[in-house]
């Protein structure tokens, strides 16, 4: 056998058989390809295919060692390289499939979270809307009740005194002769009774500001009438405060003979001018 091999090597026929010459390129490539897959992920995820590649390489190595025909060593090496590459491709397929499965699971989980979050938000929004609707209904109810109280108060006042709506507010006119003795600023007894009734109605709208104006007829001097009218306005103010109205919400002014509502030439006119006006400010002016 040795006698056969040596001449072949010497003649340089190019038989790549174990006589110390370099292994064929195909075998070198096959060895490298196998090394690559055996140390990588393929060993874990495609062990069977890596094993097959190893067997193919072993076959090529044996052929090389046994000095088989050149074509056989080349072809077996070529096939061994392909088997190693096949193992790598199958490992990659397995890894990609796992990645896809993981991504699909993450998608489903995330969808679930999105759905739950949306449901939660919807529920919270519905609750908030219901609460808003409830508060709005209560506010409307309160408003209607307040309006009704105001109407009731006006109706009650109308039964007690002359009541008129003017731009400056609701004006309750009380006759001076009912409230005070002539030229006096002390309330008469019966005046208190009437004022009690007025106070009871006013207290249903206690959040409104009130102005009390005292007026006189034209008899007497201007300064006397100013003093008299102021004293009378103050007396009514003090009485209403006693009855519970907030002092901060009542003002008293004496206007003397300056704003008559009737002709001072007649006794009737002068009687009408002698008056106290209680002005309930419109709702826009409720706060000081």
């Amino acid at each position, binding site marked *: 056998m040795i006698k056969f091999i040596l001449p072949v090597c010497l003649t340089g026929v190019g038989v790549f058989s174990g006589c110390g010459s370099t292994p064929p390129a195909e075998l070198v490539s096959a060895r490298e390809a196998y090394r690559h897959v055996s140390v990588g992920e393929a060993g874990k995820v495609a062990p069977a295919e890596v094993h097959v590649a190893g067997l193919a390489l072993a076959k090529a190595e044996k052929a090389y060692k046994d000095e088989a025909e050149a074509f056989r060593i080349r072809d077996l090496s070529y096939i061994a390289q*392909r088997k190693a590459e096949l193992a790598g491709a199958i490992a990659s397929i397995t890894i*990609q499939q796992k990645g896809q499965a993981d991504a699909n699971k993450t998608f489903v989980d995330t969808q679930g979270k*999105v759905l739950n979050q949306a449901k939660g938000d919807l529920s919270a929004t519905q609750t908030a809307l219901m609460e808003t609707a409830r508060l709005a209904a209560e506010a409307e109810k309160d408003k209607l009740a307040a309006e009704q109280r105001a109407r009731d108060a006006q109706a009650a006042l109308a039964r007690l005194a002359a009541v008129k709506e003017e731009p400056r507010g609701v004006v309750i006119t009380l006759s001076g002769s009912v409230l005070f003795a002539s030229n006096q600023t002390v309330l008469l007894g019966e005046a208190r009774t009437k004022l009690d009734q007025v106070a009871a109605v006013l207290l249903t709208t206690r959040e409104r500001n009130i102005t009390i104006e005292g007026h006189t007829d034209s008899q007497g001097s201007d300064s006397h009438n100013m003093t008299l009218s102021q004293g009378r306005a103050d007396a009514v103010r003090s009485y209403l405060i006693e009855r519970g109205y907030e002092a901060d919400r009542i003002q008293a002014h004496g206007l003397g003979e300056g704003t008559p509502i009737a002709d001072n030439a007649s006794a009737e006119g002068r009687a009408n001018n002698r008056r106290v006006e209680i002005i309930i400010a419109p709702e826009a002016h409720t706060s000081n």
Partner: protein
Amino acid sequence: MTLTSKTGTRVIAATALLALWGCGSDPALRTEASASGIRAAEEVGANEVPRASLHLQLAKEELAKAKKLSADGENAQAASMLSRSEADAELAVALSREDAEKTESQAAVERVHQLRQDNKLLLD
């Protein structure tokens, strides 16, 4: 005839048979595995994937070479070349599948990314 002669005759006959076998008896080349491997590679779209397409082409060339070698009486070489063709066809199929799996995997990851982007406010 002596024992040696009888043996010698058998050896000669056997040698002749072997010679006939080695040189031009032309047993049929079994190309079915290679041909079906090539068909399978084409069916999974190996022509559309660069690496797969290369190995598909190699498989076809090797099959053609194997047939020629067989026709020339080089049966051992023909069988060896056929094995190469089968290996290349098998690899072409696997590379084509690998490409398809990569594409699907990337699409699945992108779907998750898009879902998170679209619902950033809800998920934060």
